[in-house]
């Protein structure tokens, strides 16, 4: 089976800390993997390694079969990244932000096409030509999702995407992820939100002190059991 995202004995040693202790992980297209863990557990380091922002100390990360470290630029065409707080460019409108991000990925769209992508992501039409500085966090997340869709990304890397979102915005966000997953996009999401992980994830992993200590299909346990499991590992 070919994996869209893969980690083989991935290890990252910082001068003062071993951040990742030999991660092994595979994601198939359409899979939603939620990585749970406390702050400093190694979730963001994992995402940074997949993005090629930092180099592994040992092992390798792969996107669509390409080793990230030696193809740092090429692998960017397959993935989209949405950080915890998508600030975007406050002086530009939603349309202008999306146009910029798409053009950096090599796609030039007409305004009507940009509006379609933003509409698909759930951004109200009246907000599209407004400056992003006036947007809520949820609206900015939608522009981020629209940029991933417009880029035809095969992998979505999300770093705490629902933190700070109100329940309605979180629900809308989950729905968007489900849609993308249904279209074959693999999602790797680092989160603290156990409820959301259970709701949108196909698999859930628990990371502690740089080690992936448990991986379960979300169908194998309910939210309470997942919470108990998580708390057990965190003790």
């Amino acid at each position: 089976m070919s994996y869209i995202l893969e980690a083989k004995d991935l290890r990252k040693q910082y001068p003062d800390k071993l951040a990742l202790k030999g991660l092994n992980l595979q994601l198939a297209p359409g899979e939603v993997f939620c990585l749970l863990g406390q702050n400093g557990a190694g979730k963001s380091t994992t995402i940074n390694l997949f993005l090629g922002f930092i180099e592994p100390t040992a092992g390798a990360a792969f996107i669509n079969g390409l080793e990230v470290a030696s193809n740092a630029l090429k692998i960017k065409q397959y993935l989209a990244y949405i950080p915890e707080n998508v600030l975007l460019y406050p002086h530009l409108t939603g349309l202008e932000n999306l146009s910029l991000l798409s053009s950096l990925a090599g796609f030039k769209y007409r305004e009507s096409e940009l509006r379609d992508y933003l509409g698909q992501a759930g951004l109200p039409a009246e907000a599209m030509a407004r400056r992003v500085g006036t947007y809520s966090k949820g609206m900015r997340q939608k522009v981020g999702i629209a940029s991933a869709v417009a880029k035809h990304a095969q992998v979505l890397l999300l770093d705490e995407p629902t933190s700070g979102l109100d329940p309605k915005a979180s629900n809308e966000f989950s729905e968007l992820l489900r849609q993308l997953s249904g279209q074959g996009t693999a999602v790797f999401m680092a989160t603290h939100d156990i409820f959301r992980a259970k709701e949108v994830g196909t698999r859930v992993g628990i990371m502690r002190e740089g080690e992936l200590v448990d991986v379960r299909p979300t169908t194998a346990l309910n939210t309470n059991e997942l919470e108990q499991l998580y708390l057990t590992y965190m003790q």
Partner: protein
Amino acid sequence: MLTSIAQKEFISTLRDRRFVGLSLLVLGLLLAATLVGRRGYAALQQERAAAQHTVNEQFAHQPGRHPHRVAHYGSFAFRPKSGLSFLDVGIDSFTGAAVYLEAHQQNSVNFSPAQQAGSLIRFGELTVAFVLQALVPLLIIFLCFSAFTEERETGTLRLLLSQGATMRQIAWGKIRGYSQAVALVVGPALGLAAALLFAAGSPARGLDLGLRLGLFGLGYAAYFFVVIVGAVVVSARQQHARSALVLLLGCWMLGCVILPKITANLGAHFYPATTKAQLDAEVHAETQRGIDGHNPHDAHVAAITAALLRKYHVASEKELPVSVNGIVMAEGEAYSSRVYQAHFAALNRTYARQNALADWAGWLNPYQAIRPLSMGLVGSDFAHYVHFQQAAEAYRYQLVQRLNGLQTRMGYGDKERRLGAATWQNIAPFAYQAPPVGWALPALLGPALALLAWVIGLSWLGLKLVERTPL
């Protein structure tokens, strides 16, 4: 990709009220400096032209006189302002505007605006060059100091990189976007300068001035590019906007205030210039050893008289077809002129050495590369001043020698006679033609190359540093 990033920076900049406010202020200053400078230039030019006309008329309408009396009456040469000097007054405020042309003496150019102005001139003048050299870089610093730090702090840098852009591409896009924004501030002022220039100039002179203005604009474009690249690189290498701002302001202070002062002081220390009193004393002492045309007992005069008697095979001065006094005056003038020329040349060499040190500093400091380039292109630098000084001296020398020639041809007893008033009207008045840009360029090659080195060096090294900057 570069175009998209550049466009983003340009649009964001135009929508940033802080930048718009600052830009309007700088643009207002530039336009005001251009208009006020042009007005001042026109007034000064008119005054000098009127003064030159008056002294020419006075010279031409002298009554019947002895030629040597006319040589002592003398004339004035007024230095016309360069057509572009309203953009950069250079050293014009401190060099003189008029030189008194008389027999036996090479006077220095006097009546500088600084001599006639109050002590406030020490604080500098608001000129287009001052705004371009010192204030626009400040505007650029405030525009660019957070170019990368803000992206890093808000996380948008990671977003751009995740889309497939490289640090180098982002940096170049930013440089291009900021350059467009700066052009929007500076462009109108240079456009206004060009309009003012071509609305009033003659086509022939206009071509030279147009070329000078074009190179002036090109020089400043290179200077601003260096400042923009520098600011973007510093922003990329610093983790926080505040530290980038402090570092850039420190560089501005060092480049625009401290280093030029240090260089000027070093120049004066290593190549001290003779004071005017010293120069006058030395010239006086040396001319005393030459021919004194006014002293009939001068040994040189006796020798010249004897030589003339031999040449014309006559026994006494009375029989000579020429005036001994006229020939003695001509010889004396040639000698004193050589003495003056030698001393002025030595003094100019000292100033040139001081200026050369400042030119070399351009390799360390782009501000000190654009300054001589700017002054040289508008014609307000030391070289253009010396060109006028030498033209005035050449005219003085040929005028006095022509008068000495008239005296010589008057024969023995010339002192008792006068030449008619019409004689003076046949003498061409002083007419100064400033040198073309081609004349000025070789001397400006050093600063131009220094600026070019900054453009290439900083682009290469700076962008390499940006590329290697960790997230």
